[in-house]
């Protein structure tokens, strides 16, 4: 048994991250969970948020995911995300603008179905904003 977990982050378009790490903290649908080596096999949903990768006792990578699924097996952990990017690449101003536009859309939504769709995108955008803010807070 090694003391590392193989962490993979895949989007439909490419494999974004595949390295052995010490600990991964994943924003699960029912609460954040950390995966250490030897974690029990586990499948969970992932809500929009930040996946934090720890190596040598410190966070080395922070990756934003717009929801998806996580699978933990004997060899490691795989996160399937539809949309993912390093937090450092998110443009805070753009996200704010997106949130404002989506809030307007939400107010204009004609029926429940449409507002539900906008709400989903708004949740993702807000999670993105939170990711940017928390990154700024930790780096200062």
């Amino acid at each position: 048994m090694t003391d590392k977990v193989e962490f993979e982050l895949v989007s439909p378009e490419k494999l974004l991250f595949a390295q052995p790490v010490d600990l991964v903290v994943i924003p699960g649908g029912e609460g954040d969970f950390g995966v250490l080596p030897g974690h029990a096999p586990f499948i969970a949903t992932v809500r929009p948020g930040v996946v934090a990768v720890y190596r040598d006792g410190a966070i080395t990578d922070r990756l934003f995911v717009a929801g998806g699924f996580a699978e933990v097996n004997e060899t490691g952990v795989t996160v399937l995300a539809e949309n993912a990017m390093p937090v450092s690449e998110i443009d805070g101003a753009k996200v704010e603008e997106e949130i404002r536009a989506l809030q307007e859309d939400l107010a204009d939504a004609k029926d429940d179905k449409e507002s539900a769709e906008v709400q989903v995108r708004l949740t993702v955008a807000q999670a993105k904003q939170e990711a940017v803010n928390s990154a700024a807070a930790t780096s200062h």
Partner: protein
Amino acid sequence: MPSLKDLKLRISSVKSTQKITAAMKMVAASKLRRAQEQAEAGRPYAERMARILASLTANVQAESVSSPLLAGTGKDAVHLLLIVTSDRGLCGGFNGTVVREARRQIDRLQREGKTVKLLVVGRKGRDQMRRTHAALIIDSFEEVGRRRLSFADATAIADRVLALFGDQAFDVAALVYNKFKSAISQIITVQQIIPFAMTAPADAPAEGAEARAIYEFEPDEEQLLADLLPKNLAVQIYRALLESAASEQGARMTAMDNATRNAGDMIQHLTLRYNRTRQSVITNELIEIISGAEAL
């Protein structure tokens, strides 16, 4: 008998056509490489998605599955065919084979008394299907992945399919597309996507059985499946679009290669005729001069 000038003009026109087809072949070859790379990059996600789905379905008893995406609507009356073709022509039999297979499927289903509805991706397929089955087409998508195919394109189509399914517009859905085998051969494929047919890999059961048994789920299996199945539909469509895009470039490359070769043959043939004609013109002139001189 065409004149020398006519022949010369034809040779030069065929030559410029040959230049165009040769260039198109090069372009298709480089696009093919890109499409193949993209298909390669998309593979890990699809593989892992299939693995999770397999572990999930193994844990859920078939009778308790509430999601109609997996279990079906219990009926088999209305079929939806999602036909994947290209926007551009000049790619040999690429679109023709898809359309022919689609027509065969339609005929078969209609003979069995089923209702058929069509969703068409690609302008070429839409035009060809409209000629024979205009009434069946619900909608068509064009310019899909014109620059670069993205997952968002597939999601848009999947959303449309899911919306139709939600409105109970159909019971069974299938994809008709060209699967990429190699640059010179494409396999026409009909793949059922709703209800989703689990195609378990041949080697999975042995090692899969024990691995599956110990998985924990959060939230429960039912909820996960309900989230996963629509995503899986988008993934299946995305894969089909990728396969189709690679096939299209492969087919175009082969078609343009043939066209270039045919143009070469034609040039050879025309050049031969040009030279023969030129020769006989010279001979004629000589005969005229000589017989003129003899008459004096």
